[in-house]
């Protein structure tokens, strides 16, 4: 993985599945990240309503949380240990979903992250997430 600061375009380009879901990195830095994903008929989980599948939202949340960890000062790479997603309401069909993640604490090897996803429709998020991630640190020479 790239060391911070991460070139926004490079980050998504380096992740084939994030590219497959048409994700866009909106902001990143200092343990925070914002990534959005457009609505797409191929990502629908409930054909009766046109609502995006929870799995696609999970993928967005996981990517965004991982990006937040990578942008934490001194991080060199990361991997998900566990991730819990609460689906608070259905995302509006057709709406872009934006995830915002924050790495709020990191020990030498574990990073704790929380995130929310919104669809611009109301102040209530579509989903929230909390997870633990492995964090690999750069050494004193700034190398992985």
């Amino acid at each position: 993985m790239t060391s911070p600061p991460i070139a926004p375009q490079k980050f998504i380009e380096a992740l084939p599945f994030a590219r497959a879901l048409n994700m866009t990195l909106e902001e990143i830095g200092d343990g925070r990240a914002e990534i959005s994903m457009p609505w797409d008929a191929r990502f629908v989980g409930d054909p009766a309503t046109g609502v995006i599948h929870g799995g696609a939202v999970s993928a967005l949340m996981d990517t965004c949380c991982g990006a937040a960890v990578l942008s934490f000062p001194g991080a060199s790479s990361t991997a998900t240990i566990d991730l819990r997603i609460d689906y608070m309401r259905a995302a509006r069909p057709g709406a872009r979903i934006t995830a915002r993640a924050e790495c709020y604490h990191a020990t030498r090897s574990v990073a704790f992250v929380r995130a929310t996803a919104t669809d611009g429709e109301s102040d209530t998020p579509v989903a929230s997430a909390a997870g633990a991630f492995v964090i690999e640190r750069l050494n004193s020479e700034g190398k992985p």
Partner: protein
Amino acid sequence: MSRPAPEPVQVVKQRRDAALAALVDGVPYIGFLGVRFERLGDELTAILPFDDKLIGNPALPAIHGGVTASFLEVTAIIELSWAMIWADMESGKLDPLTLDREHLPRLPKTIDFTVDYLRSGLPRDAYARARVNRFGRRYASVHVEAWQDNRTRMFAQATGHFLMPAREGTE
């Protein structure tokens, strides 16, 4: 008195396979991931054939954590929906041949889903099976396990809670 003759095996198989196909084919995201299901009686195994687009870490390479989460959640929802329609289908209350995109039973909705990443997903096919641990009127609790080469070495597991759709006679 004589019992009615048992249904011919191909009739039973056709009914069950048609119901499963309608359920799976109705969900676009399952097709996007390339997930398919194999059925042995009422037991389902989900299969995720490896594809380059599923990669999350090209350096290893490893399957994207979001793919793993999606695969587990898809498996849980199909298993739960399958359990939901099985009884109706076998009793003849539900005719699978009338099931299509417009006439699917309402799917359960995910309340929460927790994924435990045990080891990185290798660039090869993955398999998953789900178990419904609680099948209530309001909500269900489902556990899912995914593995690759070796059934006893899971690479991920998950537990999720699902809101059950309103069903006839249960309101």
